[in-house]
């Protein structure tokens, strides 16, 4: 286990997240992709903290904040999905096309 391998992992995770966000048609799927991206950042932070800046815990702390924020976003996002589903009866992004131009 080296820093590089951790970073590679996180990079891969980040890109998989991006890929998910770009390709899932379901809003919830997109949200999951975004969660993966957040986690990639967390992994980075933990790895950097461990390998490069072992003196402090700022990286971990930051990761904690990100976890909290990501959670909050998921909560709001899912609530929004519920509301939309109630109004428009869809969760597919390509059907969100009232606003355009």
């Amino acid at each position, binding site marked *: 286990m080296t820093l590089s391998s951790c970073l590679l992992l*996180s990079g891969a995770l*980040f890109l998989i*997240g991006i890929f998910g*966000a770009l390709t899932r048609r379901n*809003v919830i799927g*997109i*949200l999951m992709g*975004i969660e993966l*991206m*957040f986690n*990639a*950042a*967390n992994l*980075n*932070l933990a*790895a*950097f*903290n461990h390998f*490069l*800046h072992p003196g402090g815990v*700022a*990286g971990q*702390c*930051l990761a904690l*904040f*990100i976890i909290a*924020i990501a959670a*909050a*976003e998921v909560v*709001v*996002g899912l609530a*929004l*999905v519920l*509301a*939309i589903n109630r*109004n*428009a009866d869809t969760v597919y*992004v390509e059907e*969100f096309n*009232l*606003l*355009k*131009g």
Partner: protein
Amino acid sequence: MSGLHLLFPEVALSVMALGVMLADLFIAARHGRVLYHLGWIASIVALLLVGVTISDPARYQGVGTLWSVDPMSQFFKMLVLLTTVLCLLLGLEYEDLPPAHAGAFNALLLLSTAGLMFLVSAVDLLEAFVALELVSLSSFILVGFERSRSKSNEGAIKYFLFGAFSSAIMAFGISLFYGVAGTTRLIGLSRSLASNPVFLLAVLLILLGFAFKASIAPMHFWVPDAYEGAPTPVTAYLSIAPKIAAMAVLLRVFTILLPASALRLTGLLALLAALTMTIGNFTAFFQDNVKRLLAYSSIAQAGYIMIGIVAGNTLGLEGVMLYSFIYVAMNIGAFAVAQLVASQAPEGAGDRYGLSSFDGLAQRSFGLALAMAFFLLSLSGIPPLAGFIGKFYIFSAAVQSGHYWLAACAVVNSVVSVYYYMKIAYHMFFMPAPDQVPLRLGPYLCGGLAVAIAGVVIFGVYPEPLVASVQASAQYLP
């Protein structure tokens, strides 16, 4: 934990936001308007508190662990608060908001404002990120506040997805930043970092995160959709407060803490600025919905403001502040008139925010049409309105720093912008009126409009006090 007292206004505002939320429990739904009054009063209180901090800089300014309270941040805090007050005045006369949720609305708006106040003071990425997220989350909810309206929902979800995506990117950027720099604090970074490509990537990803708030290309895509979907007072708020706050952060970061020139990012920033204004202006051409049009216009305006950051000199710094101030007045004014006109658009006319709602406004209410014309002309930078002073300052900065091509691009853009601004004027002045009935003007909206028009005209004709105060505020205490 040093210097917490410096953040007193923010903290007070947060507490008042929670208070408004609690007050909702004790106030009957039909008296929801009271909460709006509480909201704007709270903002004014916070404004006064900021005023106090300005009046006694020795005690109330300084650098905390994660934040820096200095004249510049105070300036932007006041602007944000002013915007909040004006938007709440607009909200008072916006009929489509559910009165039952006035508490939530006001609390979220105030929380968002508090977040912005933290944001403009932040000198640490962690603090900035958290504050940014507070703003974003509140904004997502506010955009979707007309939850039974599909457009509002749609605007909110698009805004949310885009926002979450850019947050994730920014978080990744911050993680890289931490890795390379070993800290998230922006003060006292080693110069050698500038040559590290990973560090540059981190900076760019973080830049994207702020650009999202400031609606700088390529992070502007959400803007028209969210603006159109959101309730108009929220649109007005979003088009101003987060944008200028994000600009303040970018200004702080890229002109003072990590000068763009040191990172050799000036060219990129200039490119982004040019791209932003061009996209904003040229796309605004085709808009028939006034909110959408103003959305693109606000993208373009962001491009102009960004020139000040690109210039990176004192003039640029002052220019950003000056322009932001003026931008508050003119944009609020434009949205206020748009809201008023749309609310009294003829029934069954399709899109209430369509340009045709403005038909013949000059014959119905000449003063209102004139005011709108003033706002639009100010936005396009025609003297002697305040917008000109802002542009003048910004362009000066560009010329002084030798960014001639950017300045040329900007002036060409401002010519182009006249066309679509005048499209509204065309409807107001040239089209026949459906009837001659003057528009009803509520007292709060009227007040907001008066402030805006006064700002646009007075600071256009006699900008000296404003310029002087901006010059005084542009002294940074790192």
